[in-house]
């Protein structure tokens, strides 16, 4: 298997006394579309063993409107059809307790025509009724998956339509701690009665994505896409291993593309100068990371290796990038801000101001909401983040994108506000010529 590539974008020159080193590292898996070049062919070789669990909310609210539970049943059937032969799989129905729908006893079944049909038959009988306790669903999923996270790709899809009412937030947090590292979980909220921050917490902890399915009719295509992505995973869990020299401290490490995800708190110490950040499994893809490291300043002319970023699967190093600093008295060199660093600093601010703006709007603080969402419009416009711009336009009237002059809309559909919140962390990359 060919290895990962890691490209570094940074201004390595620091002024005398300067300590903060910023770098964007673009990591591309084998077969992933590199930043500048066209997409290469899909990664070759046998895919790793995989396990897949689909968790469907069957609480009472899934019956309102009537079509929701039907759409969920259909989407689950579509997803089951996409599971590759030989992948261990199962289906869980969630209410205030979790019920194994397929198989109906412990463990998982290996996918084949026979088992897929049996699973679809079981799913067809699902009815709505009861409460919502996401933590209990995840606990059952973890038991069904067992403890094989190290040697196979374990993935779950979680669909819900309501708030986690049947258990406390602390209970959910405790469950998330026990599930972390055992499987990845993509979360979807259908309709507008679920809590964005709650599902984001689950997805973030379990290294998955979170999104809204505003219209139940879109569920099937979204499920298909999620399963196909999961089936395309070519690696087991990959971690970013970061070595920093004595005297240096890591200010932050965040994924900045395709979405923003702060990894700083996830650091697990390997030795005195090395930490690891889990990134989950990789398909054919490319992700960008922003690293900010404070180095101990040196004399003019000194050069320092301030970070060695390795991509590791277990103890196998798949790729590596070096982050450097050179101290100079030439201001022309040290004051230059790297284009990629500037871009992603803006995208991180964009996500922050959207979330702050929506919160202020909910709290009735229209002045703050207008300023924050105005700044968001300005940032989205400057960076060409058209997807986010479109979502913003559902919430504010844009008078002038260049200055961020906006007015809050009087009537905003809940799903529009939730879509903006959920997708606020989606970033765009710098255009061609950025390298």
């Amino acid at each position: 298997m060919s290895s990962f590539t890691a490209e570094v974008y940074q201004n390595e020159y620091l002024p005398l006394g300067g300590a903060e080193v910023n770098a964007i590292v673009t990591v591309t898996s084998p077969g992933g579309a590199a930043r500048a070049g066209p997409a290469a062919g899909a990664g070759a070789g046998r895919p790793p063993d995989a396990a897949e669990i689909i968790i469907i909310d069957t609480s009472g609210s899934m019956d309102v409107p009537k079509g929701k539970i039907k759409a969920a049943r259909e989407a689950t059937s579509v997803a089951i059809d996409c599971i590759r032969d030989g992948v261990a799989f199962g289906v869980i129905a969630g209410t205030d307790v979790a019920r194994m729908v397929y198989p109906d006893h412990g463990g998982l079944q290996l996918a084949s025509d026979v088992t897929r049909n049996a699973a679809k038959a079981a799913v067809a009988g699902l009815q709505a009724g009861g409460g919502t306790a996401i933590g209990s669903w995840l606990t059952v999923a973890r038991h069904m998956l067992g403890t094989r996270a190290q040697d196979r790709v374990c993935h779950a899809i979680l669909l819900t339509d309501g708030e986690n009412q049947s258990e406390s937030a602390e209970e959910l947090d405790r469950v998330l701690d026990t599930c972390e590292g055992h499987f990845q979980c993509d979360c979807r909220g259908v309709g507008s009665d679920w809590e964005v921050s709650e599902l984001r917490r689950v997805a973030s902890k379990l290294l998955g994505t979170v999104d809204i399915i505003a219209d139940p009719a879109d569920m099937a295509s979204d499920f298909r896409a999620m399963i196909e992505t999961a089936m395309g995973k070519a690696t087991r869990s990959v971690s970013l291993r970061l070595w920093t020299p004595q005297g240096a401290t890591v200010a932050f490490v965040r994924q900045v593309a395709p979405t923003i995800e702060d990894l700083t708190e996830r650091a697990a110490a390997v030795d005195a100068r090395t930490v690891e950040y889990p990134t989950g499994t990789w398909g054919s893809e490319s992700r960008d990371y922003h690293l900010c490291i404070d180095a101990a300043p040196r004399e003019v002319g000194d050069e320092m290796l301030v970070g060695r970023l390795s991509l590791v699967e277990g103890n196998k190093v798949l790729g590596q990038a070096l982050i450097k600093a050179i101290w100079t008295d030439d201001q022309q060199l040290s004051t230059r801000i790297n284009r990629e660093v500037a871009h992603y600093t803006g995208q991180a601010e964009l996500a922050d101001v959207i979330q702050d703006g929506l919160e202020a709007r909910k709290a009735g603080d229209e002045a703050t909401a207008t300023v924050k969402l105005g700044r968001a419009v300005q940032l989205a416009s400057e960076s060409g983040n058209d997807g986010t711009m479109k979502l913003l336009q559902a919430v504010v009237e844009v008078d002038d994108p260049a200055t961020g002059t906006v007015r809050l809309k009087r009537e905003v559909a809940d799903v529009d506000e939730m879509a903006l919140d959920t997708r606020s962390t989606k970033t765009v990359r710098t255009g061609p010529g950025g390298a």
Partner: protein
Amino acid sequence: MTSEPQLSCAACAAPLAAGDRFCEQCGARSSDEEPAGPGCQACGAPAEALDDEGYCTICGVRERPASNRVELDLVIAAAVSDQGRVHRRNEDAFALGVAGERSVAVVVCDGISSASAGDSAAQSAAAAARETLATAIDAGRDRRDAIGDAIQAAHEAVERVEWTARADRDMPSCTLVAALWYEGEIAIGWLGDSRAYWVAAGDIRQLTTDDSWAEEQIAEGLLTREQASRDPRFHSITHWVGADAPERPPRVVVIRPDRPGRLVLCTDGLWNYAPSPGELGTLVDALPEQAAPAAVARSLTETALARGGRDNITVAVVDVGVE
């Protein structure tokens, strides 16, 4: 039970095992152990701690390149070429020849860093130009013609430099400033932004005008010197020695000194740190009046190093006496 004396790291107090040369916790050298060889110059880690690229695996600081300096002292003329503190090779070069008490041929070149084999280009150009100038002194040729021939020889020498084509690299090329002094007159010719100065009591002048984007903008009145110096194109040169150089005869000036003084040729590795003739003059004036050319060249080089040494530094100094 015998108790061993407890060893601990002088820097972080972590316990050390007997025989540890080097603290596992903080990487500091164990005090009772002398360095085995040249290790990390920054934190004292042993040579084994340096990786293949010279980075210390403890403190991250890269080994400074070994001082790389070439000096030539021919008493009435001398030159120094130093790698500087940032670059990993010296792409500057000089060539110097003295043909009697008042005859000197001197050439300074700066290999263009965006080009392949900039160091070979600079060395070849300087050597070829000096050779032609030395012959011209022997033959008593016209100084302007001699400078023209020397630059032509430099072009031909650079075209013969072997290089590997790379998409992101230009063809081998370099700047050149050459001076020919005999029978009381000095001719100076140049291509690019390496410079010549005349430094005498009460008469300090820059003899060359850079072939650069900045000077062209200033000459046409489009930008002030201050504005140009802030532009990223400030250092872009418009003429050079090499196969892909624009066709144009080199510029030549001739001076006849009326008092003794010093002729200083240098690359931008020096003049970046003393951009005006006045600043350079101040540096030379700070030295004893009788300072030999070698002492002046060394002192100017040290000043550039002390101010950052961001580029290669080459300085040639000729003591010009008058009859």
